[in-house]
């Protein structure tokens, strides 16, 4: 068996499953976005009307902008937070057992239902919630802060709460692999902490950063539930708008919007992978 065949055989189950459950359904959605729909069933007649409607509507651009804004802010916060936490665990916690223990501590909330973790913020942030009553009892405010709940703030807070772990795991993994001797050598050569961070740690963690970025960005851009509940329905993203269409059985525009969204996210991921080729790292 040639190595080429060997590899192809090895990935065969993977290929099969993804072809059936991602490839074909995606093809279906792409087809639907070009077909006419009578409110009930599709007719295989080619049309560009769905895309025309999506492109011509100012709503589309507004919600794409909104989605990208959420993704960018969440990404920035989770990156800084995820990097700091991983850095702390890898380089400041010397005891290996303690390190693993603290790492697990970060992952435990991951095993609670996302729905429940999300709604658990509501009693905290509400008008009569813990923060507001606490602050009012301390006499710091005399009116409850309204921006805490049902706002962009609440949405991003929840995203950060739910998704930072997806940043920590890959970055932690990448950092753990960095040879401590390299850093010692750099220190001996008189490098400052900042120089070491910039020239050694960040470059060597880039696979982790890239993977974490892909996870977080796709999670935010694919979400409809958090934005709907935590913004109190006052903000929308591409997928939450799409969900409104799907709920009412108006599929064609939803499909067109989806095709557009997948293209955008795929473009973003491809750019990330161009900068950091995750696969090339394997060849070493």
């Amino acid at each position, binding site marked *: 068996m040639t*190595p*080429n065949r*060997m*590899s*192809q055989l*090895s*990935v065969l189950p*993977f290929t099969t*499953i*993804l072809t*059936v*459950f*991602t*490839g074909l*359904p*995606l093809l*279906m*959605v792409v087809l639907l976005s070009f077909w006419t729909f009578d409110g009930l069933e599709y007719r295989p007649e080619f049309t560009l009307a769905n895309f025309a409607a999506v492109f011509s509507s100012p709503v589309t651009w507004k919600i794409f902008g909104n989605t990208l804004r959420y993704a960018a802010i969440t990404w920035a916060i989770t990156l800084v937070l995820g990097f*700091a936490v991983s*850095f*702390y*665990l890898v380089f400041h916690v010397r005891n290996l057992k303690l390190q693993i223990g*603290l790492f697990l*501590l970060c992952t435990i*909330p991951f*095993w*609670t*239902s*996302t*729905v429940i*973790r999300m*709604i*658990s913020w*509501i*009693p*905290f942030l509400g008008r009569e919630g813990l923060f507001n009553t606490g602050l009012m009892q301390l006499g710091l405010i005399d009116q409850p802060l309204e921006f805490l709940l049902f706002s962009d703030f609440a949405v991003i807070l929840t995203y950060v*709460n739910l998704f930072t772990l997806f940043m920590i*795991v890959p970055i932690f993994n*990448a950092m753990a*692999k960095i040879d401590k001797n390299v850093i010692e050598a750099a220190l001996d050569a008189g490098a400052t*902490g900042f120089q070491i961070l910039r020239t050694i740690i960040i470059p060597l963690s880039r696979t982790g950063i890239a*993977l974490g970025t*892909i*996870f977080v960005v*796709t999670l935010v*851009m*694919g979400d409809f*539930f958090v934005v709907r509940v935590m913004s109190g329905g006052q903000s929308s993203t591409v997928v939450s708008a*799409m*969900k409104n269409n*799907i709920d009412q059985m108006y*599929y064609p525009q*939803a499909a067109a919007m*989806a095709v557009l969204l*997948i293209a955008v996210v*795929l473009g973003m991921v491809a750019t990330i*992978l161009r900068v950091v080729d995750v*696969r090339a*790292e*394997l060849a070493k």
Partner: protein
Amino acid sequence: MQSKLTFWLLTAVFVLFILFLYGPMIAIFILSFQGPTGGMTFPLRGMSLHWFADLFESSRYGDLGGAFMRSIILGLLAMVITVTVSFFAGLGFRRKFRGSGVLFYLAIISLVMPGVLTGLGIGTLFTTLGLRTNWLISGLGAHLTWTLPFGLLIMFAVLNRFNGSWEEAARDAGAKRTQVLTQVTLPILFPGLIAVALFGLTLSYDEFPRSLLTIGTKNTLPLQVASLTSNVTTPALYAIGTLTTALSLLVIAAAFAAIALTGRKR
């Protein structure tokens, strides 16, 4: 090597992060012990096990036990398949082969495709083919579109650390291909596979948007909980959260114990 200042600063960040992570969860656990007349928010009106008992006694929660079982079964199946399939896929991806680029991007698409849409696509596909959606077939398939790309990417990270020359050495020493696989590759990659397994299990166990249109007539736990939010407005919801978290932590603890035991034997 770093100054004391950065150390304490980062310690503070870490502690605050943990508080941020656990705060709301702990609030939920406390609120699930709310007294019989208490609501879903503070203050507590007495402490009781009322809502836990209610879960078992009242019929308003539907087939909660069945939904939990289905989610666990689905999670375990997804875990086993994800580990096996992404293990071999990861090995296969170590060299470039014809179609590897396309396949890689299919995996990325699978990851970035909004779950609602994956569900819609699979549902429509099944209808078009005249098949019936069912949690064990279309449901499992939908979950795999989510867990497999994750598994593959983690395998990439794991294999990153793996040195191919160990396999070569074994082969030079006359080991057969299957022997190399079971006695060299597998044991070395074992900890990484645990990570893949945990991701596979929890991602599937908690899956919501992909399940919506693919699960057929039996709800999984997240679907059941989400639909309960449309007629249950008592701390019983929190009791479900507390109970299922406790159970899944037990499962995880059992898994770690098993690993520790087998590890000691080796």
